[in-house]
């Protein structure tokens, strides 16, 4: 029975998710039919305002008319085929489409004046309420399905030795349980937290779940390197500063023209070839990471203080790279890194997946991971057994620097600018926390890359949650601290041993009763 339970959980979760997808399709269809009826497209926020929030019929009608009017006046409603095909091209040339849109907007306004669009487009209130029910059900189904699948993951992770005590002792279990608890709370308060919708304009899926993974990309990417650093028994405090350096160099290469030193309005161009814009920051970050590696490996400095050097001076270097300027750009290929879509998902998710897979292959399919663990557990013993710990340390720190560079490119592409003061602020602490929540011990040794991903998702879930419920952004830290405190206490050795002992005792008592 015990070894079947994950199949049951997984199957139930999959069924719920499938029904959720059906409702997702239904909502998309209704949305599309509304848009097609009237040749318009709402923003996600106003769609939610009209169809999803709990209102009576009159309010819905008024809201709908107001939304149409607002959309028509802003000129964004008449997104014909061309507009949907190439949304990015609209941005650089702001003047032209506005003029084109004006007559169309006028038409729409006239149409609105003729008849209440609510009657023509929606027809009846029942259509709205069915949509609303579908929306709510979709949230509940997605949420519940996801939770069941996560529960199955816990079981599968431990399926090799389905021993309850071992599950209780595993740190990843606690991390996943924490994530599940947060999501359950969300499911009870606001089921629509889990909703996912499709935006044809940017050709990607939207929703809080997608957003959590999307926004956790930077920390997860850095976390891959940080896990290895922590497995060596060190920490890397410089990653946040390297994020700033990477962004500063990339923006400087795109915007800084030696032949034309004047600062011009940003446009859709890059001074240097795009490949250089990508490679130079990554190379510089790799070298800075290697610098850390030399300090730690060759000079045998304490990692925390060795990387503090670059943490303190890194932001200074970033500022001096751009002469304290904040460059902005509109360069489309660069925008794609952080804001574009790939396979119907935001690009950062795809980049993150690529990084995670390649690091996992590098670490687990070669002996490298074992070397790292060995150096982390006992450096002198591993030296005696012929492992060149200096090279291992150098590679790990250089890799972390390189990954921070990737993260920096994503961050600066999200804001399309460089911000030496705030880029990557507190990334080092977030990355270290996700590694620790993921179950890798700060004392070094065994590590878990999967745990780090879960840790980084937990951190981002808390942040997204707090945003979703409209709490001030700085105050997220308090919630973060509380959740992390609970996870850390649950994961701490005395507590885990106590739990494992208790469950073992209970299992023994049960076994005795059966006999």
């Amino acid at each position: 029975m015990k070894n079947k339970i994950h199949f049951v959980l997984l199957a139930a979760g999959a069924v719920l998710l499938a029904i959720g997808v059906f409702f997702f399709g239904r909502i998309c269809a209704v949305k599309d039919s509304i848009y097609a009826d009237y040749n318009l497209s709402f923003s996600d926020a106003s769609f939610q305002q009209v169809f999803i929030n709990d209102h009576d019929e009159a309010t819905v009608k008024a809201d709908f008319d107001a939304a149409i009017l607002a959309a028509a006046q802003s000129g964004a409603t008449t997104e014909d085929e061309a507009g949907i095909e190439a949304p990015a091209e609209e941005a650089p040339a702001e003047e032209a489409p506005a003029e084109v849109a004006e007559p169309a907007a006028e038409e729409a306004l006239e149409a609105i004046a003729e008849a209440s669009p609510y009657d023509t487009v929606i027809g009846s209130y029942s259509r709205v309420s069915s949509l609303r029910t579908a929306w709510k059900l979709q949230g509940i189904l997605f949420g519940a399905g996801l939770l069941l699948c996560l529960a199955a993951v816990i079981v599968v992770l431990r399926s090799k030795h389905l021993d309850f005590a071992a599950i209780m002792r595993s740190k990843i279990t606690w991390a996943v349980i924490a994530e599940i608890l947060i999501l359950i709370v969300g499911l009870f308060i606001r089921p629509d937290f889990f909703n996912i919708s499709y935006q044809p304009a940017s050709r990607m899926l939207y929703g809080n779940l997608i957003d959590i993974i999307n926004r956790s990309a930077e920390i997860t990417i850095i976390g891959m390197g940080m896990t290895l650093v922590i497995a060596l028994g060190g920490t890397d405090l410089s990653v946040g500063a390297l994020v700033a350096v990477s962004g500063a160099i990339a923006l400087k290469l795109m915007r800084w023209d030696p032949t034309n030193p004047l600062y011009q309005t940003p446009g859709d161009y890059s001074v240097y070839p795009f490949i250089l814009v990508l490679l130079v920051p990554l190379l510089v970050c790799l070298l800075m990471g290697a610098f850390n590696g030399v300090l730690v490996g060759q000079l045998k400095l304490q990692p925390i203080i060795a990387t503090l050097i670059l943490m303190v001076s890194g932001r200074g270097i970033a500022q001096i790279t751009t002469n304290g300027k904040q460059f902005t750009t509109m360069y489309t290929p660069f925008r794609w890194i952080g804001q574009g879509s790939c396979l119907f998902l935001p690009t950062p998710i795809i980049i993150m997946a690529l990084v995670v897979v390649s690091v996992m292959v590098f670490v687990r399919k070669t002996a490298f991971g074992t070397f790292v663990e060995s150096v982390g557990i006992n450096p002198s013993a591993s030296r005696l057994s012929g492992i060149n710990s200096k090279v291992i340390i150098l590679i790990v720190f250089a890799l972390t620097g390189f990954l921070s560079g990737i993260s920096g490119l994503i961050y600066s592409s999200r804001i399309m600018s460089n911000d030496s003061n705030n880029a990557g602020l507190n990334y080092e602490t977030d990355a270290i926390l996700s590694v620790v929540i993921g179950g890798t011990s700060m004392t070094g040794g065994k590590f878990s890359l999967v745990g780090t991903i879960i840790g980084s998702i937990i951190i981002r879930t808390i942040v997204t949650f707090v945003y979703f419920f409209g709490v001030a952004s700085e105050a997220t830290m308090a919630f973060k601290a509380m959740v992390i405190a609970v996870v850390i206490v649950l994961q701490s050795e005395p507590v885990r041993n106590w739990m494992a002992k208790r469950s073992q005792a209970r299992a023994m008592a049960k076994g005795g009763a059966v006999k």
Partner: protein
Amino acid sequence: MSEKSGKRLSLFSRIMNPKYIMVYATVIIFLIIYAYGAIRYGSIGFTTLRTFVNFFTDNAYYGISAVGMTMVLITGGIDLSVASVASLTGMIIAYGYERMGISPVITMIVSILIGVGLGALMGAAIHYLNVPPFITTLTGNFLARGICSLISRESISINHPLIDALAGFKITLYHMVDGEWVKIKPITNINLTVIIFIVMIILGTILLQHTRFGRNVYAIGGSESSAKLMGLPVGKTKVAVYAINGFCSALAGIAYVLVVKSGWNMALQGGELEVISSAVIGGTLLTGGVGYMIGTMFGVLLKSVIPAIINFNGTLSSWWGKIATGALLLLFIVIQQLVVSYTGKKKAGR
């Protein structure tokens, strides 16, 4: 060695004890940088007493916090929560008086109690739950900063006579000219924050060097398991050290309030690393067991003298200060490493 044990060592050999070598390195580098400034910018007032006193005034709140941090580092721990606890202190004082009408005296006492309580709690988590200090205090940092933001997200200025009086309190230095006491020109004032800073350094030195508690702190830093085997109260000492550090951070917060006369949720962001790097530059080893208050004081002074030189130069970007601090840090830890490996070899040789 045995013949020496009964006899008091001569002053010279006591001063030249190799265990002070890091402190001397700090002092010498401070003097070199000061001498450089004196030669380059002596004509525009770098050598005046006022500039010198300002080295203390500029970073007094970091210095107060660094006193507690030095003890934490000597036990082999680390505390990343100091800056946000200081910020929380400022917020409590500002919000308490401006929005709730509570006298600053009460809020100061309350915030010091909060600092001590949070410190003791973190110390207990570190020792009894065996959570790494880095993670525990990072959580404390998030908690304090988050509570700060929950209280208020905007800067609240404080207009209270007591705060004004404390902030305005200063001792003007006089000197004797022709048998008459005259104010030193340019007028040199010693603020209350500087007095607190120096008093805390002296108290910290006494606590570390001349009490049983201080010896326990060094013993724990040297080797925690040995200290435990010797029967020293490891748990109590560690909790006490973190509580003292919480006290110092709250006091630093009060000193910061006296400087800016306001409370802000994002005040002193990144200050914990300033404090840690001051202590490290002052010769405290992050591995624990080594460190002196006087070194920490010079570490804080070094952190003030570099911006001062950049100020006097007038053309350099202030960002060079960050890079110079980084370079200085590199220099110090390389020296430390050389000293440690040298003494280690010497010990092994014996």
